[in-house]
């Protein structure tokens, strides 16, 4: 009989252990942002806003996004050079820098890259904010860099054929070509006074971002392989400039541990007294 009781107790412990394993199985691994969002970490030192090869970029988390040919607009292309882009972001609380990195077999004057953002709270179609049949949608803000220009351009659009430079130019960009890879860094203040035209970054909040790349290699016709709407694109992904560290959740957790421990001790004491 005593043996049976011991076996029963082992079952009890085993069952609790199994339940523990089940709970552990329910604990999901940390959410990976690598394929859906660009996360710009907060740096204390100088921001590598004009140096795509700065060592500081190695500290930024990297996200990779697949690229497709632009097929939405009739002037399209079906095969593009850039199959994916690697993206990193950093900010210092005042300015934000975004590094775009992609393979390109040759350096050409017409090589170009761009970032696209929604403006304000109004959703926009990723294709240049093209108005929808039943919904107008909002404008988009495009940061554009072209190798031969050697600088960034701040553009806006609300539908195909409406792309134009903003009256103000807040965006800086610099590209470096090394070993078959373009590294292009874009930078701008997190917030600007042109809220109707520029995307505004609020640390800690997610916004939308899309990418475009043009391979400017000349074809036999003398024209760049990719130009205008013939380009590699992505649809919308997410971007977030990290908020400053917030330690309050640790404080709340510590308080909760203390309360739970107190409750537990009081309960056991009461039970012992009762028994």
């Amino acid at each position, binding site marked *: 009989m005593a043996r049976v*009781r011991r076996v*029963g*107790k082992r*079952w*009890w412990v085993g*069952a*609790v252990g*199994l339940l523990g394993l*089940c709970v552990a*199985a*329910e604990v*999901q691994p940390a*959410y990976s*942002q690598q394929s859906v969002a660009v*996360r710009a970490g907060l740096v204390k030192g100088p921001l590598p806003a004009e140096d795509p090869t700065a060592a500081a970029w190695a500290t930024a988390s990297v996200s990779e*996004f*697949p*690229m*497709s*040919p*632009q*097929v939405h607009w009739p002037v399209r292309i*079906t095969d593009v050079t850039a199959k*994916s882009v690697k993206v990193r972001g950093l900010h210092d609380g005042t300015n934000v820098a975004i590094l775009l990195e992609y393979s390109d077999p040759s350096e050409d004057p017409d090589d170009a890259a761009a970032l696209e953002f929604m403006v304000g709270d109004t959703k926009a*179609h*990723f*294709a240049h904010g*093209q*108005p*929808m*049949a*039943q*919904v107008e949608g909002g404008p988009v803000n495009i940061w554009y860099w072209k190798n031969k220009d050697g600088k960034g351009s701040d553009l806006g659009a609300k539908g195909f054929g409406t792309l134009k430079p903003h009256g103000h130019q807040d965006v800086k960009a610099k590209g470096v070509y090394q070993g078959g890879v373009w590294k292009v860094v874009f930078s701008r203040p997190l917030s600007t006074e042109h809220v109707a035209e520029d995307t505004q970054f609020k640390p800690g909040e*997610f916004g939308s971002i899309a990418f475009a790349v043009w391979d400017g290699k000349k074809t036999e016709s003398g024209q760049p392989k990719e130009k205008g709407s013939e380009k*590699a*694109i*992505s*649809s*919308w*992904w*997410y971007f*977030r400039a990290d*908020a400053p560290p917030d330690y*309050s*959740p*640790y404080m*709340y*957790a510590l*308080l*909760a*541990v203390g*309360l*739970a*421990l107190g409750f*537990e001790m009081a*309960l*056991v004491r009461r*039970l*012992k007294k009762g*028994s």
Partner: protein
Amino acid sequence: MGGVLIRPIILTVCIYLFLKFIVPILPHSAPLPSSLIFLYLMLVMSGSVLFATLSGESKDAFFQPILRFLTGESGGALSSARYLVLALFPLLVGWQTYGSTASSDAPPGENRTIHPAPPGEYTGLSNPVPKTPENIMYGKGLYASRCAPCHGNFDGKGFAAAGFTPPPANFKDPTTIAMLQESYLFWRIKKGGVGLPVEGMPWKTAMPRWELEMSDEDIWKVIMGEYDGAGQKPRTWDESE
């Protein structure tokens, strides 16, 4: 006496294992969300407690092992387990508190209506093009040049599909064109991504507005080629209706 407590624990664990690992592999099934599994387990545990406390005797049999465990009267290996539980409980509470107060690293969720309702003028249209082998072949030819770069061999895996999210539709999947009428496809092909209504958010689809490049007749032929190539049939009104 401990058996009264062991049975509900084993039952709960078995139900959990069934919901977590067996249900997803059943035919026409899918993995259950954690919240639903949690709800089912709560129901099982509530039922077990109700069952175990129907009489005073069974109530004592149910709670006594718990009380003995918590007060350390069980002794033996359970004594070590008691310290473990007493240490883990506050840590679990702390972990949950942290999880509910720390800002999330996950981007906001998006509600997406996969097949939003078409405008009235595109409801119930029938394909005016005769379903002849020639028309089907012509439609497949148009499909190969216009649609295949993204939609591939009717499986949504075209060479240009990688960068698009949501991915191009897989026409061989029984939940796409097989459950839609031809008129619905006509609307989606003709008006493309920008033809989507408000509920068709988040407006990421790259589907071209083919009315700019194809006649209505060609679009109907593409639809025929699509169904034929994917081995699907369009949904139709029941003839008895």
